[in-house]
């Protein structure tokens, strides 16, 4: 292969890869904008442009290597963190999911227009009249035909319209029915079409299209006063005021809310709730303590057992390679499978453990046994990793230190505890710290094994004995009857800060970030 040919091939490969990457990023940006996710769309668009700039010039050599990592970091770490932090400052929950503009549109155009008591309904065909969307209507009860056009409804006399063999009106003077696919271009408009009924007694009556060929007499029950930021109910005469927390409410009864509400910026509300509402605060503190205990205990156990096995297998024993191979199996197996198998083994009725020992222990029903179960299963899943790392560390230790110590008369025990152990721990420190941070958020283990339980619901507990902060946040957001995404985000932000502080403190203490001099 000639050098020129190789260069051309490389250039084509580069072009193809760049096109695919930018195409994917551009596509994602477009979809994000469609979904009204402006921040994500902007991040993706910037990344796409960045990719073109960085890889199309011979400059930015270092960035060429860093950029893929930066893309993933921005997409999967920084943007979600920002999103979560922003969401935590909103009253963002069921009933308050959309923006205020969207809520007002919904309240005025959808919720606020209700079929009136008369129950009058129509069949209609959509079309065009005077260049605007229009409806040719037939009253289902009286069979009278009328034309809704130019903001008015005009009754038509026989002869002013045409009908088909089923008696359905098909056309009228000045009205052109949509043909073929024409109406598909006006999907949203047709779904919300309404025309005012001239009624001297009431100025809130409309004919409202249902979108599927049906229309009905309707009343506009809610109107909005933008100046006062108030909703007025035209039927019961009540005024609903903005409660400053995402809903219009009856001022005489603030619990009487109008839905849908909107997500309202209230920066400290969710955090204050966690700290002051006993229903949240008490379980939060309990869960927080257990999270710390779990994260540290499980890592100490994994590190200890991993090191112990590594030391045992560091000696030349028979079948050492077979043992080493077998020890990797728990790590090689997908963890969710292992967790579910363990859950089955601990089952009271048909679990292997009760069957084997002839016991009748309900591991899942007792807080302490459930916690012990978590630690045992996590030990099983995690010790092979520490075993492998410890084995590598032991093998990497310089033998001259050991030999020098032996010459100086140190015992084997002294050599291990005074020389090998400190060196191995120094190597393991960053991994132990990272593992603590990981186990702070070990959602899969807790959710698949105990679902955070047992929870003593009858004594008023709202968090389970094995819930850690991240499962508690998940339950708050998704598992209850009401989703509270803002509150769950606030809990997640607190978890993030705690993990960050613990990790930074530990890294500083272990001095692993210090430059080698």
């Amino acid at each position, binding site marked *: 292969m000639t050098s020129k040919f190789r260069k051309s091939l490389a250039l084509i490969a580069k072009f193809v890869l760049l096109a695919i990457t930018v195409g994917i990023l551009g596509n994602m940006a477009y979809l994000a904008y469609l979904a009204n996710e402006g921040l994500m769309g902007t991040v993706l668009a910037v990344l796409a442009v960045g990719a073109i700039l960085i890889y199309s010039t011979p400059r930015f050599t270092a960035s060429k290597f860093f950029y893929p990592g930066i893309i993933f970091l921005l997409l999967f770490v920084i943007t979600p963190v920002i999103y979560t932090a922003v969401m935590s400052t909103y009253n963002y929950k069921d009933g308050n999911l959309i923006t205020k503009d969207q809520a007002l549109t919904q309240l005025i155009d959808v919720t606020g227009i209700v079929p009136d008591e008369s129950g009058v309904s129509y069949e209609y065909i959509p079309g065009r009249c005077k260049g605007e969307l229009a409806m040719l209507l037939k009253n289902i009860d009286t069979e009278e035909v009328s034309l809704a056009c130019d903001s008015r409804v005009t009754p038509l006399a026989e002869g002013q319209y045409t009908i088909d063999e089923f008696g359905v009106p098909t056309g009228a003077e000045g009205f052109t029915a949509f043909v073929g696919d024409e109406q598909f271009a006006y999907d949203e408009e047709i779904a919300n079409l309404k025309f005012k009924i001239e009624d001297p007694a009431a100025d809130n009556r409309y004919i409202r299209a249902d979108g599927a060929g049906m229309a009905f007499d309707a009343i506009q029950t809610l109107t909005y006063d933008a100046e006062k930021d108030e909703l007025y109910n035209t039927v019961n005469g009540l005024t609903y005021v903005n409660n400053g927390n995402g809903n219009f409410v009856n001022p005489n009864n603030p*619990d009487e809310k109008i839905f849908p509400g909107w997500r309202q910026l209230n920066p400290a509300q969710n955090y204050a709730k966690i700290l002051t509402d006993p229903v949240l605060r008490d379980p939060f503190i309990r869960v927080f303590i257990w999270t710390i205990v779990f994260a540290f205990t499980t890592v100490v156990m994994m590190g200890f057992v991993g090191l112990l096995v590594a030391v045992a297998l560091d000696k030349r024993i028979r079948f050492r390679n077979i043992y080493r191979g077998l020890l990797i199996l728990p790590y090689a197996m997908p963890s969710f499978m292992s967790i579910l198998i363990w859950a089955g083994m601990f089952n009271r009725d048909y679990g292997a453990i009760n069957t084997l020992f002839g016991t009748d222990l309900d591991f899942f029903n007792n807080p302490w046994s459930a916690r012990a179960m978590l630690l045992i299963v996590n030990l099983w899943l995690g010790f092979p990793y520490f075993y492998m790392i410890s084995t590598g560390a032991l093998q990497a230790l310089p033998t001259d230190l050991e030999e020098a110590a032996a010459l100086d008369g140190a015992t084997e025990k002294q050599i291990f505890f005074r020389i090998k152990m400190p060196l191995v721990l120094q190597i393991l420190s960053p991994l132990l710290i990272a593992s603590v941070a990981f186990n702070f958020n070990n959602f899969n283990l807790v959710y698949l094994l105990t679902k955070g339980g047992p929870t003593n619901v*009858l004594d008023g507990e709202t968090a389970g004995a094995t819930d850690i902060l991240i499962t508690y946040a998940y339950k708050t957001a998704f598992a209850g009857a009401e989703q509270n995404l803002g509150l769950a985000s606030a809990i997640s932000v607190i978890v993030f800060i705690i993990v960050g502080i613990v990790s930074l403190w530990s890294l500083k203490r272990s001095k692993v970030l210090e430059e080698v001099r």
Partner: protein
Amino acid sequence: MNKKRVGVVGLATAAALAVSALAGIPAQAANRTIVIWADDERGPALKKFIEAPNSALAGYTVKVTTYASYDALDSAWKKASAASAPDIMFHPVGEAINAAKSGRAMPFVLSSDAKRNLSSTAIKYGQYNKQQYGLPLDVDTTAMYWNTKFGDAPKTLADFAAAFDKAKAAGTATVGLCAGDGVWGSLPFITAVGGGAWGYAKDGITPDPSKVLVNSAAAVANIKKYFIGANGKGTGFFAWDGWDGCGQKWLDGKAMAINTGSWRAVATAAAKIDYELMAVPTIDGKGTSRAWAGFGGAFITSYAKDHNVAVGAKRLINWLSTEQGALKYATALNRPPAYKGIANQVSKVAKGIATVGNQVGALQENALLGDNTGGANWYDVMGDAYKAIFTNGDDVEVTLDKAAKILSANFKAGFAKR
């Protein structure tokens, strides 16, 4: 930048934009595809007929996405955004009201067929603020399947308990009555012993949240007398661990009866179990037990507008609400239909469940059952209460009093939000 490099950059950008533009057009908008989400039971049933060409939906195609379970569907719906959300959800109709309150559902007008065929209770079940958001299509209720190999069906729960004690001693049964759908399906048991959820106002329909029945004197006395063994724990008569628990014992022929809906008829028939459908008998055979009766069906999501298929989604709902559409759905799903006019055109099991449901059905008030103001909702509270009484051997009265205290707070708060 030299000419060659400019060319490469231009080409790359153009190609990228082309890929982006081609792949970027949302499928729903491009093809006018109405996307339906449904659970593992309704999804396959819908697929049998709804994706077929339909003159009422000219210009649209319909695609059904089936989720592995109801919980998976519910979880996906809770997390759905405009980019991923469906246009129509098949779900318990009560969820349409929650969606409407969050601005995630669109109202529609009930067809004349629907108005004629649906009871006022069913219509009201799908309404919020005087507008129709949910279309009730099937009745979600249960009946007791009695395994006839255990002899004639008992006339009273007391007889049933005695029969179970004998069968257990003989080793032929390990469960008496299985709540095949977990705590949701356990209401017949708790009402059969004299308890219940809430009382009713004088009209017999409106819940009275001040009356919590779970710890009634009769319930406490009857549970102690008939269902607690010598060791202070449950005799094993009642199991509430659902289909994956006692449901498997039912299939093995080790449970004498299961309380569940028509959705377990196929598995039961496959297990070659002969059964009789009936209501769970009360302790003394007087009066009736109660079972929750909700409505399953469909609602249009507000995202249908974002996908430019709002009109199509309304047409589809409109077609489903005709007798023709409702019958196709009921036949495919094999559940008691909400439509009166087609009640006799469905399977024997669906008809049997409907007959029992007419006797014992208690309207499932989701606002009350799902509220957790007291700390946990009805399902969690009752699950814990059963566990405390029957598994741990806790005092029946103390346990049910604790449950009642929590439920009282829930019912009051839920009723206010109703």
